[in-house]
């Protein structure tokens, strides 16, 4: 079993136009920077991207957006990206907005083999249009389906050669669920170690979910809102 690949270009080399991708991250935190750059270099298009956000104008998924590589975006919040809003309002790109908890759970279900669940989020709103609703114990819920992807691309802090992953801080966010829901899951990590070096008790994503792993380089880790307090 060899999951280790040399770099991002090798990891994404069989990703073709018109496939569905999941990309981990919340805002610019915990996004697979190396693979996004490789996808931009590769120049494929017609992508359906499932990600909580769409990056900013010149970073994250904004890089793919600017080059019109994304046909459809499935996200929960896209407010930080002016080019995104423009493409959405002019209908150059198709957009499906999903409540954040529903998005997270739908990805998890895709990986866990659960085709649908019932949630109160969005009941009575336009999110519920066309969806089955049901009453349980006097409360109304709507049915949401699982989400799966041809490729899931995640970013972790540490990983080993068997694909076990550990995330750092709030860079964990959507990465663990998306790692579960890809037919092929690609993990880029800041530190790649031989199997056996990570403590099994501390693994967040077990290696069974990961098909390819590589050590990423030159992480920019851009901060969207740098907020600090004065030293008193």
């Amino acid at each position, binding site marked *: 079993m060899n999951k280790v690949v040399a770099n991002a270009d090798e990891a994404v080399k069989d990703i073709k136009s018109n496939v569905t991708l999941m990309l981990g991250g919340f*805002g610019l935190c915990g996004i697979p920077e190396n693979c996004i750059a490789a996808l931009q270099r590769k120049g494929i298009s017609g992508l359906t991207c499932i990600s909580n956000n769409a990056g900013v104008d010149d970073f994250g998924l904004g890089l793919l957006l600017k080059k019109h590589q994304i046909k459809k975006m499935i996200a929960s919040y896209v407010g930080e990206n002016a080019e995104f809003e423009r493409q959405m309002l002019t209908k150059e790109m198709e957009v499906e907005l999903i*409540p954040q908890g529903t998005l997270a759970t739908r990805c998890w279900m895709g990986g866990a083999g659960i085709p649908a669940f019932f949630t109160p989020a969005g009941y009575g709103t336009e999110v519920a249009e066309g969806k089955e609703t049901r009453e349980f114990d006097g409360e109304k819920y709507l049915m949401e389906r699982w989400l799966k992807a041809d490729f899931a691309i995640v970013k972790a802090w540490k990983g080993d050669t068997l694909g076990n992953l550990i995330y750092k801080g709030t860079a*964990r966010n959507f990465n663990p669920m998306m790692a579960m829901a890809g037919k092929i899951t690609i993990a880029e990590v800041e530190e790649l170690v031989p199997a056996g070096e990570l403590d099994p008790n501390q693994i967040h994503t077990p290696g069974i979910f990961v098909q390819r792993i590589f050590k990423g380089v030159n992480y920019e880790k851009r901060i969207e809102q740098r907020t600090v307090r004065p030293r008193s």
Partner: protein
Amino acid sequence: MLDKNGIAKRIAKELQDGYYVNLGIGIPTLVANYVPKGINVIFQSENGLLGMGPFPYEGEEDADMINAGKQTVTTLPGSSIFDSALSFAMIRGGHVQLTVLGAMEVSDTGDIASWKIPGKMVKGMGGAMDLVASAKNIIVAMQHVNKHGESKLLSECTLPLTGVKCIKKIITEMGMFDITPQGFRLLERAPGVSIEQIKNATKGRLVADASAPEMIID
């Protein structure tokens, strides 16, 4: 009239010891600055952090440690970090006692609209739909009127809804209200605001008793 910090201060007085609280982006975030003395609350940030601490000192910002508003934050002793599915299990499962969020419009039956202006502005609902559908107690922090002077407290929302019959309390620059079968009920007037002014600025059904006291915020 209250300013943003005044609204946040008044909301902070609603906090109770031991509450787990989710604060939305904007004015709600300011509530964390005014937690009453002697009370311990734990702030949940839906991107995966329980026990959100203050902003870091300059030079100690960590790109891997942000809140749901994408601001750099810190952990506190006893914090925990988790993924988005678990975060919303906390929310959907009713484990978070109080949600404070902003709104573009509210209705006198407790509906809220906060995520979309068709054809003009679409930012997305983020976690707001999950939060309003499941939190036991929801307080809305908002401006009473829009920039054209039109009421945002309506009999029916005109914008796409975030949630239906869910909000419990509203705090604006003019006062604090709860939702009753008779519509908005004035609980407290903001300092210097008359009942007449509140009536003129409220389009939905309003129960405004002359005895509604003036708010005490400090």
